[in-house]
């Protein structure tokens, strides 16, 4: 109830700031090192963002081209901090009963019937208030991802593709993201012992409301440069020949510069390198590139355009 008032005011300065998680890192560099240990190579901006997200604490709002590692960031953060990753995939029509909590109605009904039957046998009078109270007990509460993230800690809560949800849903996220608490009318407020690290991702299919954005740290993720991409390939595919990693990274980098319907992301270059590795390739040539092009390019028009120019693409 009180939380409802606070949520309307925005992050009230008078409210006691939630304590940072116990294992808060000391500097962005430490975060980068911890992320690297899980196989996620973060640049300085991203490391600073992750560090601030844990220190302030504020949700991370990640936007960027598909395949630049928005979702992977949440997974890496969970692994690095030893927290459980809880994922909420948004879609249109998503509402509180799918994101937050729901009452287990059939179980409540069964329980009520059992009470009635028991009372019928023992000829007792049921206390209506007590029965009603017992129906809205925690054991009949179905915790959906957001409530789960608040109840168990430490957690990393990934709210994926928030732009796919309706705008009403954002309003409802506000209370959760600023207060780290949820108010259930029948039970009261449920507050996280340590606030979860929240990562929101968006593909910009719709502009997310400013009220939500300004409570977050805004991260714009770009494709990595060639050197970083080579490092990512080596890190994620340990057996990959060095020469092949360099060639794949260079070729993908070039593909991003050409006019394609869907420029390949890091996920695609990883797929491509893996495909080549499985075929036993030592280096990239026109034949094996043509055979595995489906791993990088996902449109027929793109594939046609690139296939004709493969030799010039690989020559550079």
């Amino acid at each position, binding site marked *: 109830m009180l939380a409802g008032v606070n949520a309307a005011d925005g992050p009230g300065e008078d409210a006691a700031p939630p304590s940072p998680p116990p294992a808060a890192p000391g500097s962005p560099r430490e975060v980068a090192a911890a992320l690297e240990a899980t196989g996620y190579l973060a640049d300085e901006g991203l490391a600073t963002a992750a560090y601030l997200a844990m220190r302030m604490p504020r949700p991370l709002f990640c936007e960027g081209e598909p395949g630049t590692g928005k979702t992977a960031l949440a997974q890496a953060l969970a692994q690095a901090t030893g927290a459980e990753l809880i994922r909420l995939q948004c879609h249109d*029509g998503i509402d509180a009963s799918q994101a937050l909590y729901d009452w287990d109605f059939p179980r409540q009904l069964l329980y009520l019937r059992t009470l009635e039957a028991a009372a019928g046998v023992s000829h007792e009078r049921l206390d209506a208030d007590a029965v009603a109270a017992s129906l809205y007990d925690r054991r009949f509460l179905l915790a959906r991802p957001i409530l789960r993230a608040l109840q168990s800690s430490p957690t990393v809560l990934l709210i994926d593709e928030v732009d796919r949800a309706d705008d009403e849903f954002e309003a409802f996220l506000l209370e959760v993201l600023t207060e780290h608490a949820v108010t259930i009318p029948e039970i009261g407020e449920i507050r996280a012992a340590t606030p979860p690290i929240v990562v929101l991702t968006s593909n910009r299919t719709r502009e997310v409301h400013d009220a939500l954005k300004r409570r977050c740290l805004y991260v714009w993720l770009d494709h990595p440069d060639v050197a970083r991409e080579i490092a990512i390939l080596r890190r994620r595919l340990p057996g990959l020949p060095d020469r092949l990693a360099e060639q794949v990274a260079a070729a993908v980098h070039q593909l991003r510069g050409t006019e394609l319907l869907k420029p390949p992301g890091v996920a695609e270059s990883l797929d491509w390198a893996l495909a080549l590795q499985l075929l036993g390739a030592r280096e990239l040539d026109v034949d094996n590139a043509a055979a595995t092009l489906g791993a990088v390019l996902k449109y027929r028009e793109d594939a046609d355009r690139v296939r004709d120019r493969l030799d010039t693409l690989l020559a550079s």
Partner: protein
Amino acid sequence: MSAADTAAPVAPEATELLLRGLVGFTTALRHAGVPVSTERVAAFLAALDAVEVTSEPQAYWAGRLTLCGDPDDVARYDAAFAAWFSGDPLHQPNWVTERRPPRLATLTPQPEPESDADGAAEQQAQQVSASGTEVLRHRDLGELSPAEREHLRRLLALLRPAPPSRASRRRRAARRGEPDPRRTLRAALEAGGELTGLRRRNRSRRPRRVVMLIDVSGSMSPYADALLRFAHVVLRRAPGATEVFTLGTRLTRVTRELRQRDPELALAAAGRAIPDWSGGTRLGEVLQAFLDRWGQRGVARRAVVVVFSDGWERGEPELLADQLARLRRLSHRLIWVNPHAGKDGYAPVQGGIVAALPHLDQLLAGHSLATLERLLEVVRDA
């Protein structure tokens, strides 16, 4: 202001000075066109508190993460950061020169002198009778006198467009549809455990997205003002489900600017945002930019896409045809509105429109209020 005060580290004059410098930077940023709120400034100061302020990259990232909210903001932030912290007074960041005075007022042709002869009587008629409105509804938007234009603005503001809708995934109680177990059970409970009948539920309706792409090149300039006003009216009706872009030599998104309630303020803001008024058109390239950056990601998916253009294309028509084919595959309906299509003797022969025709669901006229009303009906029923 209290937010900034509490977030600041507690210390004497030196910090006070530093604080002022930092808040000054956010003001400069606001002038550069990044919408910085007090809340964001507070977050910026809190972030600086958590990192090493003396390290320039860390200060840079602390600001970029807290003060930006859009990829377009990032470029402006970079320029403002470089200008502010380089301390070089000669350094002229490009965002200052990019701002242009609003040109909407002078955009439209001013037939003031010649309107005296025959226009005076006409104006008179409009002021006194309702039939003037009826005539005006069918007049060409490009050939109006200033008084008629004023009248048209008021008529446009009166339009009440009904947004198109689509089925949502969410289900609501309904008279027909699939059985709803939960409500059926609840009804049974009320009746003492007796099933009295099936309750049902069905998919609810949500507004379908409408995307308007308005050509603001030279050949369309007589219509651009009225079309943007029209777009404003449609946008205000369903702000969450409408997107407006202008096409010229480049693509500009004006949804944010047009979201303001007051049409004059909204139009002025849009005028400032559009850098290529009355320039040339490269429809194919600009459509490609739209599809790459917005359309394919989801803005055009399952949307009703309306292109307002006369189809004068400077670039290659093949590119335009390819892009329209792409747009057609993504969208729910693709409608092209050509102001010339309603005129006598019009034949779709311009390079652009010939290339476009095979990919369109409908080609409509859009030169008068009556035809725009017709467009609203088509969009509603899409």
